[in-house]
Structures are given as structure tokens and as C-alpha cells.
């Protein structure tokens, strides 16, 4: 199952070429992640992601430029789950056109001890429906 998130584009996301700057794509993907991992998880009674999670790796393919418009649609799913990390994959659509594919490896992180930690059973249960 895919999580669908519509993200508004800001004027300041555009660069001198008149399209969304490549670096800002990371921020748009981050917004989709925050919506699921923090807002969605909290609604499901899970706050442990909000208490600490870090990005281990990002990879992004840019397929076509995105112009200024009301929103972009991000489709997101969990493409891999390991003991202490999981991968979120995304597709970003501008209208009906696929503009970017990306993936982020996320690691649950204990901010107090500054150490990565294993996924809890509750976290696995929350992520499983989004696995594809």
C-alpha cells in the first residue's frame, strides 16, 4: 500500500532556471516522511519515531523538471525493513507526470545516547502495511 502526500511548492523552492531546485526535492520527500512517521504514527499511538530517527542514505533520480504550481503528489512506501533500519521509496508526480524517484534509508536513533537502535515491534507493525 502506498502513502500519498500532496506537498505545496514554495516560490522560494524555484531557482534561476524557473524550476524546483534539485536540493529542495529532499525537503519535499522529507515532508511526506514527516506526515507518515510523525503525524500518521502519532494518530496510531506511536511516538517513538518522533523521539529520534536519522537518515543514513538518500538517493534521488531526477526524471523531469518541476515547475511552480499548487502541489506535487508524493507516493511513498516501505521498500525494505531490517533489524535496525528501513528504506522508504518515493515517486514524485507533477500533475500526472512522474518527475522523480527516490529512496531514503532511515535508522531509529536514541538521541540521549547518540546510538542507533533496533526497530521495536510496534514500529514494525506500523510500517508493515506500507511495505511493498
Amino acid at each position, binding site marked *: 500500500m502506498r502513502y500519498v502526500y500532496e*506537498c*505545496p511548492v*514554495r*516560490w*522560494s523552492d524555484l531557482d534561476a532556471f*524557473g524550476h524546483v531546485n534539485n536540493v529542495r526535492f529532499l*525537503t519535499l520527500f*522529507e*515532508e511526506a516522511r*514527516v*506526515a507518515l512517521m*510523525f*503525524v500518521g504514527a*502519532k494518530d496510531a499511538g506511536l511516538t517513538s519515531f518522533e523521539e529520534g530517527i536519522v537518515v543514513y542514505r538518500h538517493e534521488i533520480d531526477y526524471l523531469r523538471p518541476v515547475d*511552480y504550481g499548487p502541489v506535487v503528489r508524493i507516493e511513498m512506501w516501505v521498500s525494505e525493513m531490517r533489524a535496525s533500519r528501513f528504506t522508504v521509496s518515493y515517486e514524485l508526480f507533477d500533475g500526472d507526470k512522474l518527475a522523480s524517484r527516490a529512496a531514503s534509508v532511515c535508522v531509529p536513533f536514541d538521541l540521549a545516547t547518540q546510538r542507533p537502535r533496533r526497530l521495536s515491534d510496534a514500529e514494525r507493525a506500523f510500517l508493515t502495511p506500507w511495505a511493498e
Partner: protein
Amino acid sequence: MTNPAEAAAGVPIAGPAIPNVYEAQVRWSDADIMGHVNHARYLSFFEDARMNLLATSPAGLAGVSGSRGYIAARVAVDYLWPAEFRPGLMLRVETMVSRIGTMSWTLDQHMYDDDHQVAHCECVLVGYSYADRKSRPLADDEREFWHQFLVTGAR
């Protein structure tokens, strides 16, 4: 203040203020280490409110072919209250016009978190020809457009 020249010409001086409303979505990366929405990001929210309104104006969206040029000459922001970041936070920007001149006009913008005002912004925009690199007078349809957002008592 009543402008005698406009009054004589039968131009309505000021109507009720009808603000344009824009909902700015706050991002995770807008928060600073204090957990506040970073002050510099407020300028982007005010800008987005302006750009959306400008896109519906006769001048059109900046940079798009056929649009009439404009440029910001001044932006002043007063910070009234720190907006605390929370995922899903939307800040409401209400935009009105406080002055319409020959070449320029002034936007009066207020930002709210629910009913709590967090900031105020004054922005002077100038009609600007990018081809000639100089200011241009506002056309009648532009003046008419901005007039609908003119605050009571302003001119």
C-alpha cells in the same frame, strides 16, 4: 484620509478591507533548534501569499511569459509571537493593501497561528519593466484589482 482629487473624480476612496487569505504549510525543516519556526522562513510564507495573489492579478505570475513585471522594493517584518513547530502546522497569511501609488503599492500582511497573530509584514512592490530595467506605472486594471484589498481609510 480623503484624497480630494479622487473624491472629485468620483473614485471610491476606501471600501471595507477584504483580506486575501493564504494558508502556508510549515515544513519540518522550517523549525530551528529552539523548536520555533525560524524567523527567516516567515519571509518565504509572506512571499508565497503575495505570489499566489499576484498570479491572480492582471500582472500575472512573475517570470511567466506575458506577465507584467514587478519587484519588491522593501520588506519589513515585525515578530509578535514565536510560532512553535508541530507537524501539520499551517500558518494563515492575510494580505491587504495599505497604499496604491502611481508606480508602487504597499501590502499589509498579517500571519496567524489559529487566532494568535505571530507576525506582521509590510511590503512595497513596484511595477518594473525587466526589459527596460526601470519602474513602470501601474495600469488601470491593476489599480482596480488592488483596490479591492485596500484597507478602510487608506488610499
